[in-house]
């Protein structure tokens, strides 16, 4: 339900308790659906109903006097009558950003932040989140419960961080979103989504766009949103009729979503105006360069290579170096690409399917069919999901 993020965030901000906010919202939602007629402003109704219910709960738990102290008698007077909703100008402050910062507080482990954000802000069921991060449902439930308890007990403030802490905290938010997005995106064949009936990529896209909307002067936030939009723009082209994965350079550009591409380009232009580059923007720029194939019919590989050089400097990692090697091969030939791959730490990449797939690609281009086949075998031995497996098998058969 679209109202959920705003209402839950506002409740959490006032109640200072994530669990209480979620429960109160769920109850209010149920009661709202049972009404004979939907209220004119559903979100406002939900907020007031949930808050009332939560206050009742607090009163019972702690005694009337303390409940008043905790929330301020003004707040109580404000919502004393349902009819008052119509008079209040904007009864629900936009606390979604606050909630996102809280879920991404560095005091919470990196592996739990994305899950917490998806649960509390998007309302994703725990089962879906568990499958997204490849853990059991019980393990994820425990993690989230502990995280919420920590938020409550450890003194994490329900406030936006102070401006001077912003860069570090914003970095944590963006990394969390990137992690959530990578996990959703890795599900190329939509196996996860079909299982669970949720479009996880859509949820992450919504969050990324929210952050961009709420922080329009933060170029990295805009860059991340652009990155997510561009990846999503290709959703219709990622699988062929048999369900096999189709790599980017071979996708049918008529199946790309040009509205999303345009939206991404607009975000990147806004980001460029801020004049502060960063990894998210560079990654989005690479994707945008690939997207131009839909307009020009070709990929500007030297531009892609230059961008990977920049990205590698900002974010040195074997996977980035791998992608760079593939771009290098496009401009200087397969042998040059293979040399670049040889410089990567083979032990670290031994379990990375993309590494073997990339080697196979370049070996085939260099005329080394047998070695290419071996590399594909290594990739297949690493238990790829169905869509990827079909693609790898097709490549092997074609050699």
């Amino acid at each position, binding site marked *: 339900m679209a109202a959920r993020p705003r209402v839950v965030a506002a409740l959490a901000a006032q109640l200072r308790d994530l669990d209480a906010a979620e429960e109160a919202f769920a109850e209010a939602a149920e009661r709202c659906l049972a009404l004979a007629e939907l209220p004119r402003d559903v979100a406002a109704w939900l907020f007031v109903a949930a808050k009332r219910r939560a206050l009742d709960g607090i009163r019972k738990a702690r005694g009337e006097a303390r409940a008043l102290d905790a929330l301020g008698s003004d707040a109580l007077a404000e919502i004393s009558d349902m009819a008052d909703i119509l008079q209040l100008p904007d009864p629900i402050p936009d606390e979604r950003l606050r909630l996102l910062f809280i879920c991404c507080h560095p005091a919470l482990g990196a592996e739990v932040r994305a899950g917490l954000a998806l649960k509390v802000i998007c309302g994703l069921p725990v089962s879906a989140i568990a499958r997204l991060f490849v853990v059991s449902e019980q393990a994820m439930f425990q993690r989230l419960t502990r995280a919420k308890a920590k938020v409550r007990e450890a003194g994490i*403030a329900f406030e936006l961080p102070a401006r001077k802490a912003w860069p570090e905290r914003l970095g944590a938010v963006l990394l969390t979103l990137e992690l959530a997005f990578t996990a959703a995106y890795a599900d190329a064949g939509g196996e996860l989504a079909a299982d669970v009936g949720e479009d996880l990529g859509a949820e992450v896209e919504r969050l990324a766009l929210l952050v961009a909307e709420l922080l329009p002067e933060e170029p990295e936030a805009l860059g991340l949103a652009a990155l997510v939009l561009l990846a999503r723009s290709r959703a219709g082209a990622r699988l062929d009729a048999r369900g096999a994965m189709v790599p980017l350079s071979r996708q049918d550009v008529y199946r790309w979503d040009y509205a999303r591409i345009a939206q991404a380009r607009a975000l990147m232009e806004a980001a460029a105006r801020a004049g502060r580059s960063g990894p998210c923007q560079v990654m989005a720029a690479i994707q945008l360069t690939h997207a131009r194939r839909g307009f020009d019919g070709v990929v500007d590989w030297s531009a892609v290579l230059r961008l990977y050089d920049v990205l590698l400097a900002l974010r040195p990692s074997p996977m980035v170096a791998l992608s760079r090697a593939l771009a290098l091969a496009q401009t200087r030939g397969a042998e040059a690409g293979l040399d670049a791959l040889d410089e990567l730490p083979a032990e670290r990449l031994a379990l990375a399917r993309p590494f073997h797939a990339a080697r196979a690609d370049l070996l085939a281009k260099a005329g080394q069919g047998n070695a290419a086949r071996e590399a594909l075998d290594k990739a297949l031995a690493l238990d790829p999901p169905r869509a990827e497996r079909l693609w790898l098998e097709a490549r092997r058969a074609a050699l």
Partner: protein
Amino acid sequence: MQFMLMINEDESAYAGEGGAALMEQVLAGHMKLAEDLVAAGIPFSGERLKPASTATTVRSDNGTVTLHDGPFAETHEELGGFYIIDVPGLDEALEWAKRIPVPKGGIEVRPVWQMGPQG
């Protein structure tokens, strides 16, 4: 809200050449920190503990009590001291924790259980 800041450090940092000088520096750092806390109006207390080698541990196992020569846990880092500060929330506690001089180790930050009606 009260937080305890527990200083866990590797005492070997203070051994050998330059160890004494390092200790002087760290102590000066603590004095500066205390001044800053006072200047910021933050209620606090804190103590420096003698080295882990001076510790004696009373262990209790189902009613049986034994004495051990040494700290509770034999680890590289030992509890060297602590602060208890009263600040609005975790972010502030972490900011102060970052200013504690620790050549080799870490500061554990934990909220103190408030007795009586919860805030």
